[in-house]
């Protein structure tokens, strides 16, 4: 284990390439941040609700915190990383050594994530997203100094672009979208999870009113905290979302306490989804999400769970159209509705079932109260599946799925006439092949390049 001794005052990263680096010594504190928060919640809960504060609980929590810190320190001690020959290598593990090599040409996106604690300490976490892998194959450097993380992100993206086919053309960056904080707050409350939270909180308050004592709701407190926490995470994660178009890809910044900055490289978007929940439609609000190959590392600083990355957490029709035009210069709209007998199979979603396609994209919409319109670039289609359930067979219907890279990513052309479904299945593979070969030619923007 040789650690490079960097000259005083200069960022560690500027030390020669190929050397081994360590993470920041304060990393264990940041990584134990979650335990700090849960300890605080438990302490508050105990002192607020329990007449007999159980000292054992507090001691147990302190022990957990101590273990987390100690474990974090050992993990810091044995972790080191280096960049050499276009490969990022991360070695870690005390008992079970784990050495990861991430070829930078395979990187789908690079994120800089800062939790609240990390922001106070001036640290940031760097996350590399690699296709197809769960957390097992993705890279995570937690934590580095903020400036170092930003610099390393630029360097990694540059190396990734250099090893890909075409280098990105230089050009100015421009802002495409900035979320309105007040509208985001309203939007979070007006979704299904917001409505759930409202019901839960009201029910709790009502119970307190009726029973006249706060202790009766104590068993439900975790539920309330959980629901409120989910809303908070969404608001925190999407607060101040700003999307800029830059030469090396789309840049996304968001976050209130914990901030995230990610860059989505051009041509790495697998699917685009426009979501319109019930009440939002009245208000003319839209949500635009994209799927990028490669899952986000789910660690203690995870802000968004499994949800997809929202380019527009909430925005107007004009915002959504501008972003769609930026992502897909010419995109089809779902114009072909499902045959009317599909109403018998899908009475609650029939009104939204439609699809369409041109020579570059397929679009399909569905949903019961929340309309979801998904665009999949034909060059990104991994496989096409035709599925027919027993009820569909009775009615002469079938569904065609277009799968893109990732879990549950893709469009679903639901409940089409048998003949139409077979025709889709017959023609789409050829269309997709044409789109792929067109994308494979040099000089085409948005080429799938290497992966």
């Amino acid at each position, binding site marked *: 284990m040789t650690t490079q001794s960097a000259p005083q005052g200069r960022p560690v990263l500027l030390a020669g390439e190929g050397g081994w680096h360590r993470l920041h010594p304060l990393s264990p504190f940041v990584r134990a941040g979650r335990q700090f928060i849960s300890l605080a919640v438990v302490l508050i809960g105990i002192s607020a609700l329990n007449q007999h504060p159980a000292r054992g609980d507090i001691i147990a929590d302190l022990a957990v915190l101590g273990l987390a810190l100690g474990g974090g320190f050992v993990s810091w001690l044995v972790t080191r990383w280096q960049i050499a020959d276009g490969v990022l290598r991360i070695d870690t593990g005390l008992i079970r050594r784990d050495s990861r090599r991430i070829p930078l040409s395979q990187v789908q996106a690079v994120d800089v994530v800062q939790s609240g604690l990390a922001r106070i300490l001036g640290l940031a976490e760097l996350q590399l997203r690699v296709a197809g892998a769960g957390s097992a194959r993705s890279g995570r450097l937690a934590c580095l100094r903020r400036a170092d993380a930003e610099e390393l992100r630029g360097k990694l993206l540059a190396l990734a672009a250099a090893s890909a086919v075409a280098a990105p053309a230089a050009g100015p960056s421009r802002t495409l979208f900035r979320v309105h904080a007040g509208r985001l707050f309203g939007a979070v409350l007006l979704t299904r999870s917001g409505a759930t939270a409202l019901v839960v909180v009201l029910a709790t308050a009502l119970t307190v009113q009726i029973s006249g004592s706060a202790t009766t709701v104590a068993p439900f407190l975790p539920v309330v905290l959980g629901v409120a926490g989910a809303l908070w995470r969404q608001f925190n994660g999407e607060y101040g979302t700003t999307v800029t178009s830059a030469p090396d890809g789309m840049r996304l910044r968001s976050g209130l306490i914990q901030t995230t900055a990610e860059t989505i490289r051009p041509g790495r978007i697998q699917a685009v989804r426009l979501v319109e929940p019930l009440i939002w439609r009245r208000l003319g609000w839209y949500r635009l999400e994209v799927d990028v190959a490669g899952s986000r590392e789910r660690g203690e600083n995870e802000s968004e769970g499994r949800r997809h990355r929202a380019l527009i957490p909430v925005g107007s029709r004009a915002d959504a159209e501008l972003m769609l035009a930026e992502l897909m210069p010419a995109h089809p709209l779902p114009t072909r509705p499902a045959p009317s007998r599909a109403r018998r199979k899908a009475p609650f979603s029939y009104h939204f079932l439609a699809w369409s396609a041109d020579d570059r994209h397929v679009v399909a919409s569905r949903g019961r109260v929340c309309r979801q319109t998904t665009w999949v670039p034909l*060059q990104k289609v991994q*496989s096409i599946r035709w599925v027919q359930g*027993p009820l569909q067979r009775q009615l002469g219907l079938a569904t065609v799925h277009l*799968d893109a890279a990732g879990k549950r*990513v893709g469009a679903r052309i639901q409940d089409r006439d048998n003949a139409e479904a*077979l*025709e889709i299945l017959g023609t789409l593979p050829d269309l997709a092949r044409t789109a*792929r070969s067109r994308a494979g030619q040099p000089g085409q923007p948005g080429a799938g390049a*290497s992966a």
Partner: protein
Amino acid sequence: MIDRSEVSWLRPSPLLLRVRRIEVAAVTVPLAIAGWLGGQVVSAATGIGIAAALVLAGLLAERFLARRVAAWGYAERKDDLMVRRGVLVRRLSVIPYGRMQFIDVTAGPLERGLGLATVRMHTAAAASDARIPGLQAAAAAALRDQLAALGEAQAAGL
């Protein structure tokens, strides 16, 4: 337009049905014996009744699996692999060779005993569904090599 008669479907080996039958028997017979012994505690008729019901269920499962095996088929086209399966819910997948990430060839102890193997082609999409069970080991190896070669020739990545 895909006319199903136009595509020449290849089928899993008939031995696959034997594998499935053995699997069903391996579950049904011990269960029936246990049910019979358990029922004996109440009365002899109960024991026989339980055992008969379990055997009947096993026979029904065997019928169902026979239809499933019969429904399975695959076709190697010029640019893609087609796999169809399912009786109640019918599925037909088209997977371009160029999308292949890797191929699995697996064989359980029972399959191995009868010289069978399962070939599975993976793409970057988790939902892709290209599994072909019950191929003769030699055919499975040949299919694997052929798919690998085609995949390499047409590789399209993500």
